[in-house]
């Protein structure tokens, strides 16, 4: 019985394309996930087109006007320099989405590979690999950032590097835990007994089977990456004023939330909608990729 299940599983995995096709079919039935996908696509299109469609320049100031609430000229109001908030949010989306996706992708790639290898190899290799993670966890992050800044100067690529360097650690731990529990399951043992190479097992069986928690964690990583960017920009790494990002707009907005609430509400709302969309999409993907979970 177990033998045959394992073999069918193997056969499934051989045809990677059909897995994705099936997933797409299932995803299409999930309205919330589709809505999430739609919102994300919309945001990406806006971000790409911003330089052509933004109503004002992102740095154009009007000090006499100062902070003004939403009006016909400025739909989302203006900040204390009289800069149009809609424009600034649109330009901010370029930074935030890029950072969110690229840095998360970096973290994902490193974390999943590292965690899988450690979890699958087990024993001494696992111990050494996980102690390395412990070391990286423990190093003083801020000093590390300051050093990066000084050695390499200010650079948006460094931002990705710095964020990726932190975010992959937790990912690796989670994936390793998952792989450890998968490793003793029948179909993996079957694959080993069939003489498949380790790399093939990792690629075809372990990684696909960790997708669930990984996708969930990814949808959590993207927002925290966007906020981390705000912190790093605040420290001087990353982007510099007058450029902006959602995280920065929110952290500025917090300062004046009693006086000029719209400076917090609109960027906050944008970020929240994005996160909800991502979340729905992530859940949908997870269910779509993992047929077992969506039954019942």
């Amino acid at each position, binding site marked *: 019985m177990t033998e045959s299940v394992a073999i069918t599983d193997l056969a499934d995995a051989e045809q990677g394309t059909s897995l994705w096709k099936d997933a797409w079919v299932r995803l299409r039935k*999930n309205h*919330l996930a589709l809505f999430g996908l739609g919102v994300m696509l919309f945001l990406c299109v806006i971000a790409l087109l911003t330089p052509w469609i933004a109503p004002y320049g992102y740095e154009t100031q009007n000090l006499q006007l100062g902070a003004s609430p939403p009006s016909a000229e400025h739909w989302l109001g203006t900040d204390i320099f009289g800069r149009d908030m809609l424009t600034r949010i649109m330009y901010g989306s370029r930074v935030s989405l890029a950072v969110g996706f690229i840095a998360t992708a970096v973290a994902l790639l490193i974390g999943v590979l590292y965690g899988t290898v450690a979890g699958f190899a*087990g*024993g001494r290799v696992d*111990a050494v690999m*996980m*102690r390395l993670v*412990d*070391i990286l*966890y*423990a*190093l*003083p992050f*801020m*000093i*590390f950032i*300051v*050093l990066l800044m*000084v050695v390499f100067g200010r650079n948006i690529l460094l931002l990705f590097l710095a964020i990726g360097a932190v975010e992959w*650690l*937790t990912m690796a*731990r*989670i994936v390793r*835990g*998952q792989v*450890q*529990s998968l490793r*003793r399951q029948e179909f993996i043992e079957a694959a080993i007994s069939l003489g498949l190479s380790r790399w093939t097992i990792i690629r075809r069986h372990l990684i696909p089977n960790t997708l*669930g*928690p990984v996708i*969930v*964690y990814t*949808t*959590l990583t993207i*927002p*925290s990456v966007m*906020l981390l960017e705000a912190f790093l920009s605040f420290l001087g790494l990353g982007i510099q004023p007058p450029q902006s990002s959602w995280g920065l707009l*929110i*952290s500025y907005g*917090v300062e004046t*939330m*009693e006086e000029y609430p719209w400076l*917090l509400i609109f960027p*906050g709302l944008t*970020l*929240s909608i994005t*996160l*909800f969309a991502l*979340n729905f999409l992530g*859940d949908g993907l*997870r*269910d779509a990729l*993992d047929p*077992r*979970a969506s*039954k*019942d």
Partner: protein
Amino acid sequence: MSRFILSRLLQAIPVLLVVITATFFLVRAAPGGPFSAEKTVPPEVVKALEARYKLDQPMWQQYLSYLDDLVHGEFGPSFRYPGRSVNELILGGLPTTAELAFYAMLVAILIGACAGVMAALKPNTPQDYIPMSAAMLGICMPSFLMGPLLVLIFGVWLEWLPVSGWGDLPGDKILPAITLGTGYAAYIARLSRGGMLEVMSQDYIRTARAKGLPEWVVVLKHGLRGGLIPVVAFLGPAFAGLLSGSFVVETIFQIPGLGRFYVQAAFNRDYTMILGTTVFFAALIVLFNLLSDIVAVWINPKLRHQLREGH
């Protein structure tokens, strides 16, 4: 099991040594010394101060004497607080931070696990969407936003709770614990929902149901054990993260904790203090990761079996 724990503790020694060494040289490589100030410090003063803190010695000598002190349990004098030793500072801040982290963890687990399990029992229904959306809000709301917002509502407008402090006024621990806990609650909710979904579709759950066990027994006895594995893997790093990441909350609420010392030390280039707190946090992280691995082994019978076989 005890062999596993012992070997992990032994492994911690090289880990800490690498952390110490890397940090020792990292902080000295960072620009801006501990004694620079807005008004340029006269060179004679800088010389006197460097002599006082042995910064005029060759680097390797400083390193060795630091290790020597460390073996004797001495973290050295703080550069920023001339009359204080790092030991004194850490011991002063630790109880507060640990208490804060503990309450925050409580908040996170209570809210997170409840929301996640509720959601997983009836996926894709309002019982799923509502708690999960609420959990999502926790992530959307970084503590630098959540803190001021809670303070504004409960402290300033409603006047229910103090706006700052720790242990000075009744109820002043509530808002900091919630602020710090909610971010982690969201993670826990997400992870436990995922884990529960995974487990509840497994065969042994079906078997349990087929045996006619009441649903709550199935969920609590069989479901939770497997479903919370990803959560447990997360708890170790999360608690360490709570301890070292309480900086923002400690600043917003003026709490005299370790997180603030740590970040202040980094900004001030208080070398001994940075090293002291880093070593201390590193030890905690190693410890909590070990604990979460032990718990993971304990609740996952397969891993337990594997260990007994001889790892």
